[in-house]
């Protein structure tokens, strides 16, 4: 290490420590043989994982979250896919205004959306539960999916679609043979992002879920009981590992089946 890089090196160490130490504390304490999250560590145990796995309410909450996450990510990606196509391929009236309208949900506080939805839902005389949670997650995820897919769509050459039309395919087949495979990395990214957003979303689920708990609501409800706290640590550790695996899988999928090519951009 050269002298002049020492400060940069120290900065990097602090930077990564700041980012990852809080996250890494979870897995470390999840193996600690104590109810309390304090150093020094007492002893190594798998008990918390075993106990956690035996809780049927957790199974239900996990299942609820996965169900909501999958439906929300698929539906919002689907909506965003066609909207992005329209937005980038056709002359949309009030283009700038529409773009602003797409971005707006990012700045509206989640709690406002939650309150608005609970008012609408209950005034229609409908029961709270997983259905309004799923709908609210679709609403919340769609702008993220739009942004990913619009940038993907803008990144690929319109003449590829024209070439397909020119070679005898109609718009339907052009979409499935050219547009869809070229957008696939974006679609996968959109699905995963929407799933992750929905999976750890708290406020909307808190307002709308009633007794059907999603995983974040379950975790929050368990925090009230100190004896159950280590289970939450174990659960958190598993979530970190699974999420990392999903992202790595997505990256691997992205690069699959394209020869040596890692990028779809057309260098001309």
């Amino acid at each position, binding site marked *: 290490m050269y002298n002049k890089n020492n400060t940069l090196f120290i900065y990097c160490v602090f930077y990564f420590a700041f980012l990852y130490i809080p996250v890494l504390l979870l897995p470390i304490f999840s193996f600690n043989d104590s109810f309390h999250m304090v150093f020094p560590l007492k002893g190594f145990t798998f008990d918390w994982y075993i106990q956690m796995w035996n809780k049927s309410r957790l199974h239900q909450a996990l299942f609820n979250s996965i169900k909501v996450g999958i439906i929300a990510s698929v539906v919002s990606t689907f909506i965003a896919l066609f909207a992005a196509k329209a937005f980038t391929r056709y002359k949309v009236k009030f283009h700038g205004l529409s773009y602003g309208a797409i971005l707006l949900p990012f700045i509206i506080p989640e709690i406002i959306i939650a309150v608005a939805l609970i008012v609408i839902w209950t005034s229609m005389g409908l029961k709270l539960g997983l259905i309004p949670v799923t709908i609210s997650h679709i609403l919340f995820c769609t702008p993220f999916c739009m942004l990913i897919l619009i940038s993907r769509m803008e990144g690929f050459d319109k003449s590829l679609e024209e070439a*397909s039309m020119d070679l005898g395919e109609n718009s339907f087949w052009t979409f499935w043979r050219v547009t869809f495979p070229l957008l696939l990395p974006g679609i996968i990214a959109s699905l995963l992002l929407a799933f992750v957003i929905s999976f750890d979303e708290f406020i909307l689920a808190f307002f709308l879920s009633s007794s059907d708990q999603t995983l974040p609501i379950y975790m929050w409800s368990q925090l009230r009981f100190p004896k159950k706290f280590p289970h939450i640590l174990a659960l958190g550790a598993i979530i970190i590992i699974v999420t990392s695996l999903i992202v790595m899988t997505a990256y691997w999928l992205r690069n699959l089946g394209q020869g040596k090519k890692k990028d*779809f951009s057309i260098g001309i």
Partner: protein
Amino acid sequence: MSIKNYIKIKNLSKSFGDVEVLKNINLEVEEGEFFSLLGPSGCGKTTLLRILAGFEYPSEGEVFFDDANVTSLPPNLRPSNMVFQNYAIFPHINVQRNIEFGLRKENLSKDEMQKRVENALKMVQLEGYENRYSNQLSGGQRQRIALARALVKQPKVLLLDEPLGALDKKLREEMQIELRNLQKSLGITFIFVTHDQEEAMTMSDRIAVMDEGNILQVSPPKEIYHNPKNKFVSQFIGNINILGAEIKSVSNENLLIEVDCFGSMQLKNYQQIIENDRINIAIRPEEITISKISDPNYDYNFQGNVKNISFYGESTYFYVQLNNSDKILMVSKNETKEPFSENDNCFVNFSSNNLKIIKD
């Protein structure tokens, strides 16, 4: 052999919003013809090609392929295929599947399909490239694959949108000859869009020169070069000296004119109709000779001074300032027997039958 007009364009106009990019175009292209649309960027040539392909629809007018009205037909139902400016090779599939792309509906057996692909690759001299991807090909190779992908469909008309624009000069010249030979051997009608006049001249049977949404002239290359219809065409195709002149008197077939920098001159056997007193007189650089002493074989000799010399190898251009005038004449010579250098005094010589009257 009766050659019929395969493509007919009738009273075609196209506007994007308030901008009229094509103005009442009428054009007929013969079957098996190598036809070029030539013009500066923004002249509407690419829009016209895209209308022929079906990517744009005309605001007014009609397009016929083989007497069938195709004006509102989408691109997938037209007997034409296109080679795109940026080639548009599908990046997610290999060369083999790129070329097969348009054959899905033909229900070919695996062997027939393979044969068609092989033939297409042979045609563009890229056998053995089946498994490459677009990013593993050079610009020239992509261009050939785009050509093979279009030709494998056995189209009646091949539309080419500046396909050689992105290639370097040497490769471009090779491809010009190759394209021309391919077109001759296949007998397909080629519509070739270019802004490069040299490219259009060397390859085409006929050229349509376009500017600001109008077709100014449709003629074979030689005709366009020697008898340009107006000032724009004459200046766009090759180099030319254009001089202002005033008509002094008209008698029988002789025309006495006062050329701005030459003084009075007589034109014999002129046939063009003169509309007003001010006219343009044009002469190509190669129709003027340059010499140290005045050359009596020519009608006119003027003294001047060599201002600049541009050496192109096969020819040399001299920019000669005439004495008693601001006008600088372009003179070209294939070889320089008399070596001139800049600021040398010289004579420029030419005959009156090389002078042309050009409309504005």
